[in-house]
């Protein structure tokens, strides 16, 4: 087996040094009653060429569409080649968590740069080194709010991604949180309803752009939370933050989201990364790793994991979270992507998404399809009624080589005829024309 170096001669020598006759003797402490005596019932070993064929055959059973308008939380943005090149550096790919900083300045500095980028984008002061994905960081933020306020009620808008809401509710069990949802009103959320619900709440969590692609009245939602002395948590899209105001600048104390849009392939849902940023005063309550700047014994600048007394390996049952392994490599991908784009490139990406989405809206409505929320400003996604069930429309469009979007009826009542259409900078006007032909022939 080509991953193993030991020859028969090596094994003999090693057994002799240990002082046993066979490898089996090394397992003598295992009681007979729990020994597994037969061979594992799995398919035979494969050499690399055969393995490649097997896996490629599995991949061939998948049918990723050429043209896709499916978003709903994970997006077909372009991943530049330099991102892949950096991730393939073995010194990054195969390194462990940087607990030994003298051997890990590369990863530590990269995480420090990532933390800086997240702070810049969100308008906040501190970011952790990543969470698992955009759903779990929302749960993390709710727990931070509980610790900060001593309250256990959390208000979540119904227009927030259903997967995010489901995960928050699952974690709420262990965290001792009561989750209250505020329904949307015509595609966005009414700040007055939030203000009412936020009384005695630890936090208000809202997403903007929301699941429908609509821009929430975010500063007013944050104000409603703050008036109730609840923590305002915005769930945001990194790609939108070149054109949309930073949540830290309109009253949010925490910002979270799914980082996949910046730097990660879709890859059937992961691995990706969740980001979490906060105002300075929350720093000691944050979960996850944080990298700090310091000096070495010779006065040279360097980077280390810091505030580790928050974490499980020091604080154990009093830790801010149990998180250990996070999503460092994917966050690094995000940093590389954002570094290539720069502020101007990020702005242009947002503008291109908006311009193309607007074109799609206009062409679809010209063909007689109705927008579900015509009066709302959207970013890169919008909901359109397709005149039959969305699932039928999807099936027919797939037959024409176009994946037209997400069937909103899966998550929201009364929207069985509604399709959520995402338009990224990878789409073209010609592809949008194909979408229109597929939905309204």
């Amino acid at each position, binding site marked *: 087996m080509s991953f193993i170096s030991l020859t028969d001669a090596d094994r003999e020598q090693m057994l002799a040094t240990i002082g046993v006759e066979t490898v089996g003797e090394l397992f003598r402490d295992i009681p007979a009653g729990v020994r597994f005596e037969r061979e594992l019932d799995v398919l035979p070993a494969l050499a690399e060429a055969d393995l490649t064929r097997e896996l490629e055959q599995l991949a061939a059973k998948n049918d990723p569409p050429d043209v896709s308008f499916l978003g709903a939380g994970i997006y077909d943005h372009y991943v530049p080649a330099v991102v892949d090149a950096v991730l393939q550096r073995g010194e990054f790919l195969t390194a462990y968590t940087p607990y030994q900083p003298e051997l890990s300045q590369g990863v530590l500095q990269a995480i420090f740069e990532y933390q800086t980028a997240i702070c810049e984008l969100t308008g906040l002061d501190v970011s952790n080194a990543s969470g698992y994905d955009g759903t779990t960081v929302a749960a993390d933020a709710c727990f931070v709010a509980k610790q900060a306020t001593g309250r256990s009620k959390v208000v979540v808008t119904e227009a927030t991604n259903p997967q995010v809401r489901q995960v928050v509710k699952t974690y709420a069990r*262990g965290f001792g949180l009561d989750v209250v949802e505020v329904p949307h009103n015509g595609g966005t959320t009414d700040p007055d309803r939030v203000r009412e619900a936020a009384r005695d709440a630890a936090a208000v969590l809202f997403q903007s752009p929301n699941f429908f692609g609509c821009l929430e009245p975010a500063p007013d939602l944050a104000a409603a939370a703050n008036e109730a002395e609840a923590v305002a948590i915005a769930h945001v899209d990194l790609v939108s933050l070149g054109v949309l105001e930073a949540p830290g600048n309109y009253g949010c104390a925490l910002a979270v989201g799914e980082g996949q849009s910046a730097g990660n392939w879709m890859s059937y849902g992961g691995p990706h990364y969740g980001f979490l940023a906060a105002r300075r005063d929350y720093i000691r309550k944050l979960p996850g790793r944080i990298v700090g700047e310091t000096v070495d014994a010779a006065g040279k600048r360097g980077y280390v994991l810091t505030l580790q007394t928050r974490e499980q390996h020091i604080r154990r*049952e009093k830790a801010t979270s149990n998180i250990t392994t996070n999503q460092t*490599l994917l966050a690094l991908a995000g940093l590389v992507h954002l570094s290539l784009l720069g502020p101007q490139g990020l702005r242009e990406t947002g503008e291109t998404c908006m311009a193309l989405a607007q074109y799609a809206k206009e062409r679809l409505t010209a063909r007689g399809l109705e927008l579900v929320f015509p009066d709302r400003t959207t970013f890169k996604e919008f909901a359109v009624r397709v005149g039959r069930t969305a699932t039928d429309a999807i099936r027919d469009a797939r037959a024409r080589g176009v994946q037209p979007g997400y069937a909103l009826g899966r998550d929201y009542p009364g929207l069985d005829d509604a399709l959520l259409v995402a338009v990224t900078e990878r789409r073209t006007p010609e592809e949008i024309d194909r979408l229109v032909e597929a939905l309204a022939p």
Partner: protein
Amino acid sequence: MNRPVPLIYERSQAGRRGLAVPRPDLPVPELPDELARKEPPRLPELAEPEVLRHFTELSTRNFGIDTGFYPLGSCTMKYNPRVNERLVGVPGFRDLHPLADEEDVQGALELEWRLGEILREVTGLDAVSLQPAAGSQGELTGLLLMRAYFEDRGEDEQRRRIVIPDTAHGTNPASVTMAGYELTPVSTDARGNIDVEELRAKVDEHTAGLMLTNPSTLGLFDENIEAIRDIFHGVGALMYYDGANLNAVCGISRPGDMGFDVVHINLHKTFSQPHGGGGPGGGPIVVRNNLAPFLPVPLVVRDGDRYRLDYDRPKSIGKVRGYTGPFGVFVRSYAFMRAWGPGLREMSEVAVLNANYLLSLLRDAYELPFDRLCMHEFVLSARGLKRDHGISALDVAKRLMDYGFHPPTVYFPLVVPEALMIEPTETEAKETLDAFAEAMLAIVREARDQPDTIRSAPHGRPVERLDEVRAAKQPIVRYAFEEHKHPTGAGERQLEAQKGA
């Protein structure tokens, strides 16, 4: 090599761009003023070659398994097969959207199902969720499952306690808190097993369960596991297996047969997912049938030759992560398992052989707290060096860097003073183990003859020992541009003094 690498922000110049973005000839809709960005984010501005060079330079300041021996205990730093990197990039995997119709992702669902089947065989348990993104998340999921199980039986209020040994990894007690349970500790005896008599006294009808790694973080298989099983199952409690050390026993002993009801696997340990500098990982769980109804949704199910996602699970605890889980991690782990086949048993045998060989080379020079054969890892104590020469486990770790090795885990498990926790894994050559042992023995001699060399180690790395106290006292956690004050140290103070003279 030893000059600091500037921050990418320090290399930035206004007007540079690293990526052009498509700009269709279409008008850009206006945004309401109160929602529009006022100040652009200060992201780096560099051309593409400079970006690549920056990150390449950073990577040369980092040490991975590709670089050299990395014997971190309980981390299982084995070789990450490169074919796996090629396979995750195949468009038929890479370009799949997690909300695509099941028709369009039959290959992905089949892979997930097959991965689950192998995990069932290896663990000896019945039902799988691949959803958790890391071992810690698997732990939390498993504990939430246990709560749901007991609540279903009307016993959740009564059963508030989880038993954890003093050798447990910190994630275990942290997970207990996150799940809303209380912790009952139990000690380790002189043989390195859980103290069974103490356990018997502490386990009763208020116990929900046990969280245990077996072999433990001491690298020792608990000889009393059957008695432990009887104690917990005897009071109707459950047993949770932390799979961090599974590399020792694949195909040799199965957690389900040991009595465990819920297991998490670390795909980034046993099954070769690269650690990526801190992640990603995968923490799938496998459970006994009586816990299956509570698993997170969706489950992957096979119907004849079709695969589908089952959301119709009314007793499910919900979701712990988006979609079905970190699929790219599944591709790598599945490929790894298919490369080994039933030889996964041999993988564990070689892991245990390598560890015992290395242990024999070191056991006389360092203290061995538990005089037994080890499994895939072992723990030594540098207590003697500390007592006789003032050299600590930390000092040993830093000096090992000068010999070209990543150090082992230090100061864990907590029950061993000046602990050095060493796990070679099965992918190391005998010559590497010999060279590492040589270095460890050389350090013992140096401790006696020239301890200052050790105390000032590492030499020849980009940085010397870093001031972690300062980093925590005055946290600088982002670059602040014009307002950024890089921390100064002895070097700068000297400069200032010279200026004044």
